[in-house]
């Protein structure tokens, strides 16, 4: 039964959605289609269809390594972020001294352009950076500088530094939104600090943690300027795309194909992740 007001409500809703949809289609979807089309064309040509770019990349033995590397870096950084954020937020919740300052500090990596942060980390962990100087002087069995910069663990640390704020911020807000009555109830029932943490607090804030970690993962997956200047031998998928553009002549179709593969992988992983998120947490 359609009444006038229902139709009007639907119309209003549609109108309200229009700017968002227009923006989405015009600024993202259509350009995306242009890229997809290009990835299916032979290099440098406007007509004809081919799937050679996809096939040739996926057939390459290195392709598997590159994809694996991208995942390892993103997952590693995300796990580290979760671990660190949980500890940090539990500490900050009690509002220790300087708490406002530290909450601000949490935002710094997101406020400053990633490249500058990466430069600082590169200098800090370099062979003459303070970290190595410290290790050589104060740790007895280390005489040679540790090569951290151009290694996988090093990259994971870089990614973690740059993207943990996403996780930290949502964890903190979820934690603070928690009703203290629940914890009080557990406390009164005789649970000690650790038990409350493990069985009450953590399960309740898990959705928030995971939501924030999604953002961290997405950012780490798509990061390219950082591995470009600090990646050395390890070139994740994003750098692969740029490699194609730097050939003579630039291989835009190949680059587009790799970009599409990257996009598909990211969306696929995220869907799985969201599925896990949606499972009831009991």
């Amino acid at each position, binding site marked *: 039964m359609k009444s006038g007001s229902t139709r009007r409500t639907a119309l209003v809703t549609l109108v309200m959605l229009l700017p968002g949809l227009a923006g989405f289609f015009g600024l993202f979807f259509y350009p995306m289609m242009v890229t997809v089309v290009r990835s299916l064309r032979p290099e440098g040509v406007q007509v004809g269809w081919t799937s050679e770019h996809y096939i040739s990349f996926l057939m390459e033995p290195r392709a598997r390594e590159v994809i694996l590397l991208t995942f390892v870096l993103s997952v590693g950084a995300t796990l580290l972020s979760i671990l660190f954020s949980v500890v940090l937020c539990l500490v900050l919740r009690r509002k220790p001294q300087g708490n406002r300052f530290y909450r601000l500090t949490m935002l710094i990596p997101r406020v400053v352009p990633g490249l500058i942060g990466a430069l600082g980390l590169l200098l800090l962990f*370099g062979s003459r950076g303070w970290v190595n100087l410290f290790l050589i002087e104060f740790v007895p069995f280390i005489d040679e500088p540790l090569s951290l910069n151009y290694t996988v663990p090093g990259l994971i640390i870089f990614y973690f530094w740059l993207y943990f704020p996403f996780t930290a911020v949502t964890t903190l807000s979820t934690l603070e939104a928690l009703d203290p009555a629940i914890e009080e109830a557990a406390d009164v029932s005789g649970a000690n600090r650790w038990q409350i943490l493990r069985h009450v607090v953590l399960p309740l804030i898990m959705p928030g943690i995971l939501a924030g970690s999604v953002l961290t993962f997405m950012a780490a997956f798509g990061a390219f300027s950082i591995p470009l200047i600090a990646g050395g031998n390890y070139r994740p998928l994003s750098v692969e795309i740029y490699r194609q553009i730097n050939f003579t002549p630039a291989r835009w179709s190949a680059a587009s194909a790799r970009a599409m593969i990257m996009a598909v992988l990211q969306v696929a992983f995220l869907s799985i992740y969201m599925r896990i998120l949606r499972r009831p947490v009991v």
Partner: protein
Amino acid sequence: MNRRAFILVGLVTILSMVLAACGATPAPETIVQTVEVEKTVVETVEVEKEVVVTAMPEPGMERPTEITIVDLNSGANFQWYWQQQVIPAIEERFGVTVDYLVSGESETLERMKAWQPGEGDAHILFVKPETIPKAFGEGIELETLYPDKVDAIPNIEKCPEAYLQTVLGTNIDGAGALYWRSQYALIYNSQYIEDPPTSWQEFYERRGEWEGHIGIVRPDAKSGSSYRIPYSFLNAYVDMVDEEGNAIPLAELQETQEWQDAWTKLQEFYTVAKQPLPAEPPNMFEDFNAGDTWISFYAMDYALWSRHEGTMPPTIKAGFLSEGMAAGSDGYLIVPAGIPEEYKPLAYDIVDFLLSDDQQIRLITTMWQYTGTDIWDKIPGVVWDTIPAWEDMEPARLRISNKDVSDYIKEFGADELIP
């Protein structure tokens, strides 16, 4: 009903977008026009020119008061030079405002391809040699400066013709004016090395002395040093061009024993470099500054300028390798065909000005970069205290002429050479 309409509209929109995206880029039309151009030369001689293509008269055009120069070649040292010395000189000389913009090659070429005809916004580009064949490969048209525009750019005749006709083994048919010649040399830190090698073969023989301290950039780096270093190395062991100077096809070379030996030696050479190989030259210079890398092969002007400015240790020196040292990123000035016609006369004037003796001499005395024009007798002698005289250096100067080889290194180098 509501829902279905929703979905239908959505599908139609998506479909139309996909179809539109397929027909995306129309081929640029070539605009043909007659242009009456008035050019004022510095000694206040008025010269009227008429460039006739097809009859389509245009009313008199005004000379532009603002022009954009896009720099795809200069490092930080030269950016300083351009902005502090060259641009003010141009502005003063021509009474125009110059917008100087530093950009990246791939982005710029991509955007040039997307220009509407006659609406290009980069009027003069200063590029690396490889950019010109790349532009041609992408279908970007450049004005032929030599010999077509010799009247507008008389100074271009002072440039060596070979450089105007080919770069990196490809014909460019005079599309670029040579602004500077860059030279690679052995760069070493005299704090750690007192008797550097004087030839590639000696460098290879004595590699054990400096194992772990040799700086070699990754073969797939964006920098030209990625292929210049291995190319020069190979050149010391095998000829890659025949007697007429034509490149020998890679397939042929790979059959020869000489090549295979040379390639094996090259792979061995990479294993004694400082690991991990620096991704780009800035990373390599950080290694120099840390004292981890003692010796490498790179653009001489960059190293000397850095030492002069204090961004590299004062003990840095340049050396000579007798079999051949690769030419560096020679600097070319190009004028795209796709810019508005009224900008072209001014663009030619500026190119001519940059090739003038005064500007070229300033280049070599301030930045220790070899000039694009052959005016060696006009250069003050004090320059030769710091850098080798051109006639001494030129026999060892190696223009990269075998494109097959350099392409092969760029594409497969990462797989085959990195230990």
